């Protein structure tokens, strides 16, 4: 099982490397989105209030993650999916996709963070908590979005469907992440965020386990 997962993750990485346009596209998407925000808000570095910084950052990460993960089942055509179906167990496939997409979302989030820091200023007071929160948020985003993109891919790869199915499901994770991120920005003590971190991890676990249990049924159809 573990070997199967690691081989599947390697396959994802190799595929991504071969079709660099998809990865570069999504990276450029983040940078342009941040830049558009910067121009629309009309704020100079450090001018933006902490609340708006936080909200804008997470909204951009949300949209880039939806776009980045949406292709995880779409980029591979039916014939190849059938081939995976024959050689790999559905559990290994969903786990490998979730792990891979976590990495992808994390890369997007870090890139977004970098660009944000450069042009909109970096008001984060507690880097450790902020990064831990990013990791947890990335796991949650990828667990729910991978499952939803699997569902959307069965329903004709509709981009609208991907958005409307994933947004409500992802909101609990997004809300928790935004709240913890606010604490990190304000540099509050870790004990304040402890229960929220725990709640976020628990929500991630619920979503990931549900996806893990349900995916075999989805894969079979």
């Amino acid at each position, binding site marked *: 099982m573990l070997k199967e997962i690691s081989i599947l993750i390697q396959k994802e990485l190799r595929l991504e490397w071969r079709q660099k346009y998809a990865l570069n596209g999504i990276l450029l998407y983040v940078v342009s989105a941040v830049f558009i925000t910067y121009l629309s808000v009309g704020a100079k570095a450090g001018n933006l209030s902490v609340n708006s910084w936080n909200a804008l950052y997470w909204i951009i990460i949300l949209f880039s993650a939806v776009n980045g993960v949406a292709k995880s089942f779409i980029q591979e055509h039916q014939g190849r999916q059938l081939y995976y179906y024959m050689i790999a167990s559905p559990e290994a496939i969903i786990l490998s996709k979730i792990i891979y997409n976590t990495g992808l979302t994390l890369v997007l989030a870090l890139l977004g963070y970098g660009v944000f820091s450069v042009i909109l200023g970096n008001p984060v007071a507690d880097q450790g908590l902020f990064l831990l929160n990013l990791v947890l948020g990335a796991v949650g985003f990828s667990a729910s979005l991978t499952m939803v993109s699997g*569902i959307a891919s069965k*329903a004709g790869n509709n981009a609208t*469907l991907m958005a409307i199915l994933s947004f409500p499901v992802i*909101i*609990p994770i997004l809300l928790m992440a935004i709240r913890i991120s606010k604490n990190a920005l304000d540099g509050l003590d870790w004990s304040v965020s402890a229960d929220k971190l725990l709640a976020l991890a628990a929500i991630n676990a619920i979503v990931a386990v549900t996806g893990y249990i349900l995916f075999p049924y989805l894969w079979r*159809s």
Partner: protein
Amino acid sequence: MRQSWWKILAIALLVYTLVAGLLMDVPRLPILNETIRALHFHVTMWFGMILMLVAAVFYSIKYLRTNDLQCDDLAIEFTNAAILFGVLGITTGMLWAKFTWGDYWSGDPKQNASAIGLLMYFAYLILRNSLTDTQQRARIGAIYNIFAFAAFIPLIFVLPRLTDSLHPGNGGNPGFNAYDLDSKLRMVFYPAIIGWTLLGTWIATLRVRARRIERTLEDQFLNS
């Protein structure tokens, strides 16, 4: 479910809820005053909705295990009835909020969470409509139904408890336990939950039967 005793029970309980809920003495409390009667007509909607969503998830799981389309009929119709209750719950809640909090929408975490929950189930309906094959629609619908429910539970039970809510029982507001609820309000509240849930089940089963008739007629038409 074709027996009639529970339907009679539903009507009896709802008549009792309406009469007793509107006429009986209620505790006089600051701000809430008479609006505390919303307990029987607003709070019960959410209880009914959640019970019916649990039923929908149960039948979705059953569908995935058996591939029996009748389970899918039950799952979709219970979800439909739950959405009806959810819409009624959010409307009654907004009316109540207008008179106690001063605004139809105050950005209360529970209000937001229930709106998001409704979005989730509207998305479920759209997902089902976008699929044309009956078996595939049933299967993917069932998968999303279970998945959405798993995300819905933390949304309504965990998140509102982590922040202050304006709702009674949250954020320093006295809960119903503090209202001397034990004797008067509970006598109407619990029967009201059962009554509304039975009414929802009744609506769902009627629509399931209509679906079955439709399917039989279609089969006859195709075979003739």
